[in-house]
């Protein structure tokens, strides 16, 4: 008899312009560890947000059966009440509060409206024992390592009487030892009857621990693999994860010719004093003139951090190693220095740190190179309008005028403004971080065409992308990153999705 604790039936979820989930079905048996795998953007997080009530009942189609009853969660607190707890990749702990306060935050042990702190500490100790974490409950969270913080999160979940525990990339930030401990703990929780959904990019973990694995791709359920039948194998999972045909939306470049090496990194290491670890380790890479070099890898593999460490180091990492531009050793201490030397960086988060949303198009396009439209510190506003007007036309930015606020544009047009801003700098090396994230296919094609155009003008491009199709479709050479290291270098001829995935999940 099948005893399913959770059945999600025919779940569909649409965002404006995008169908994130199509008819997804997902069943989890009581007491198993069920892995949910898929590429970035396959719909795993969306599915879990539907399950936990982040997207409340009514905003999606389909049914959720939990513990044999249909559930209509209106909010996260509803799903928590039912016994479903999600632990996100970015831990939701309060660093300046103690372990016991964190475990019972939002779930305080109280009598007549007053918190009973002594009872809280006693209970917290019991929870800590369950997760085998040997720390004083009065320790502050910020004084614990990431591995132990993760365990506190689980203790917090246990304190809420969890029946279904969902872990989103729990080992992404952990070292090997901590990861192993965590997996061991999950096995023990399973013995105690707690069902667990594990979202992970690390296929080794999935193989080591999962009883079942459901593969999502492009917002659809592809299949559910069973460990008992020997189906949870790396090659099988990867095949299902990437198995789509690459659509031909990548404009071809004719007569490729690569020149001298423009940019090179040797033994490049960036240490983040805030995280207390390397975000990039011993990176060696080079980019030739007229070349698009793709950097593939999963989220959190250190690609953005690497780009920032090159582009003037705004996060103040401690850097080691050498960087060469046209054979000359360089080191940038501020983005302005990088810009002066002809390096440009289009950020992955265009709304957060890329554009000035409350300002208009012309303002944004000239922002990184104002002196070019100014004489002696005075801005020539007419020249500014003329220049931005020409970029608006060349990039086909759809807006009534260059005086339109950038915040009112669609994602694709915002991205084009970003590109225009950095093209106006006239760089030799353009670093694009997720250049087509969250924009529609038509705009994607336009951006790829612009990239090819720039290359033909003699520029070099580093393209960071989580979309395998894009990496394979646009790059001339591919580096794959995992955990801050370059784990593989592939010529485009030998590269395919399986190989990239293998290096990325190393």
């Amino acid at each position, binding site marked *: 008899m099948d005893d399913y604790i959770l059945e999600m039936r025919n779940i569909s979820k649409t965002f404006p312009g995008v169908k994130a989930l199509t008819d997804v079905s997902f069943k989890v048996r009581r007491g198993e560890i069920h892995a949910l795998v898929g590429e970035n953007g396959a719909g795993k997080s969306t599915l879990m947000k539907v399950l936990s009530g982040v997207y409340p009942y009514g905003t999606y189609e389909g049914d959720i059966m939990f513990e044999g009853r249909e559930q209509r969660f209106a909010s996260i607190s509803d799903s928590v009440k039912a016994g479903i707890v999600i632990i996100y990749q970015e831990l939701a702990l309060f660093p300046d509060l103690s372990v016991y306060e964190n475990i019972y935050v939002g779930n305080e042990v109280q009598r007549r409206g007053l918190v009973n702190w002594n009872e809280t500490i006693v209970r917290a100790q019991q929870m800590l024992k369950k997760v085998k974490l040997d720390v004083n409950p009065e320790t502050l969270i910020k004084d614990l390592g990431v591995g132990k913080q993760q365990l506190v999160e689980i203790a917090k979940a246990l304190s809420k009487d969890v029946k279904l525990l969902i872990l989103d990339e729990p080992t992404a930030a952990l070292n090997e030892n901590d990861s192993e401990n965590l997996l061991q703990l999950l096995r023990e929780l399973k013995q105690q009857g707690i069902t667990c959904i594990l979202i992970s990019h690390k296929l080794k973990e999935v193989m080591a621990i999962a009883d079942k694995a459901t593969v999502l791709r492009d917002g659809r359920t592809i299949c559910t693999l069973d460990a008992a039948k020997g189906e949870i194998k790396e090659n099988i999972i990867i095949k299902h994860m990437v198995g789509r045909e690459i659509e031909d939306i990548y404009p071809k470049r004719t007569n490729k010719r690569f020149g001298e090496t423009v940019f090179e990194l040797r033994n490049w290491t960036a240490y983040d004093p805030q995280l207390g670890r390397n975000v990039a380790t011993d990176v060696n890479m080079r980019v030739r003139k007229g070349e698009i070099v793709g950097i593939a890898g999963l989220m959190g593999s250190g690609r953005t951090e690497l780009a920032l460490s090159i*582009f*003037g180091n*705004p996060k103040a990492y401690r850097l080691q190693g050498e960087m060469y531009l046209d054979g000359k050793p360089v080191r940038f201490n*501020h*983005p*302005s220095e*990088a*810009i*002066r030397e002809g390096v440009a*960086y289009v*950020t992955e988060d265009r709304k*957060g*740190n*890329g*554009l*000035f*949303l*409350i*300002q208009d198009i012309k*303002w944004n396009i000239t*922002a*990184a190179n*104002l*002196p070019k439209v*100014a004489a002696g*510190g*005075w*801005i020539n*506003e*007419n020249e500014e*309008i*003329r220049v931005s007007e020409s970029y608006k036309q060349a990039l086909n930015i759809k807006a009534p005028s260059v005086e339109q*606020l950038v*915040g*009112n544009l669609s994602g694709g047009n915002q991205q084009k403004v970003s590109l225009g*801003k950095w093209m106006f700098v006239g760089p030799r090396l353009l670093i694009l971080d997720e250049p087509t994230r969250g924009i529609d296919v038509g705009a994607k094609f336009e951006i790829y065409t612009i990239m090819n155009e720039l290359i033909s003008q003699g520029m070099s491009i580093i393209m960071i992308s989580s979309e395998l199709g894009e990496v394979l479709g646009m790059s001339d050479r591919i580096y794959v990153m995992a955990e801050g290291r370059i784990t593989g270098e592939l010529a485009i001829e030998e590269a395919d999705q399986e190989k990239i995935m293998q290096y990325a999940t190393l």
Partner: protein
Amino acid sequence: MNLQVNDSRTTAAAGGGFVREMLSLLKVNVREYGMYIALFVIMLIFSILTDGLFMSSRNISNLLDATGYIAVLAVGMTLVIVIRHIDLSVGYAAGFMGAIAAILLSHYGFPVYLTIPIILLIGVAAGLITGFLVASVGIPAFVATLAGMLIFRGALLQVTEKTGTINVRDEWFNAIGNGYIPAIAKVGGLNLSSLLLGAVAIILYILSEIHNRRNKLKYNFEVVSTSIFVLKLVFVSVIIAYITWILAGYNGISWTVVIMLLVVIVYHFLTTKTVLGRHIYAVGSNPEAAHLSGINVKKITYVVFGSMGMLAALSGILFTSRLQSASPTAGMLFELDAIAAAYVGGVSAAGGVGKVTGSIIGAIVMASLSSGMNLMGVGVSYQYMIRGGVLALAVIFDVMTRKKRS
């Protein structure tokens, strides 16, 4: 002068379009014009309620002179708020530096032409220290300048402790806050030099507008239709002429007004026309993006606080000169009046939005309220409540129009 260029294109909507174009211009720029309209309405209401006393030469002249020392603070505060900070120290900083000026003049016999630059430099130095604490050490501006406020208050008490109020007898210095541009002659009871200055201002304004318009046409940009353009020229010219006429009917244009105008003009051009100004607004709009665009956020923070310090010093000079003395309580609550003026003038606490011209209007709006209510004999208790209400209304209006636009 050829204003007819491209008229076929620019006045495509002419005919019945004139009213439509004007309405759409008003609609698009409602935030910008809102303040001017509010000021107009306030002045109108007070004129009616006081039987025209409010708009009398004497009252307007006094009103503007009394606004001066807050207005220059509001200009500096605008930039501080634009880059998402605040400066609570400027009130007592102004009081303290006014006292130093008085001491230099009265006790040490410094001449005016030395005293003023020294005080302004001290102001810049004080502002740079705040900038250092905020940009380099990383202390929240609220706390750093709260500390500065206490320190300046103490310093002011210290330097005025022995003597109490310090009187200033230097005529030149006192003229800054009390003097007027010499009349040369009177024409029908009106101050001739002021009239001439007004006329020059109108001519300069018209010439610069025409120059701008021709430039735009040279680039083939769209401009407003000729009729709207002429209407705007006439409208603004009439306003300048009217204000000049009012002031000329009393003692003419005061030095305080001249200084205030100079500060506004310099800062207006600095913020809207220069690379430095653009960088200030970039830092306010999105500090991270500004940094990644190669803008030195720290340097901008220093510059803005440095300029704030200088304007605080100027405010101190204006105030001391106006009272012809420095007192232990000078500068009290100036900072809050300046902040209120900036917010009434349309500055946004979220950063990156706000004009210095707006803040000046904001300062005049607040001063008009005080002046008008004084004339009407409204009690001080009600005055505070009404001014508080106006401040809240101004910000509510700002938030509403912003929401509507996005």
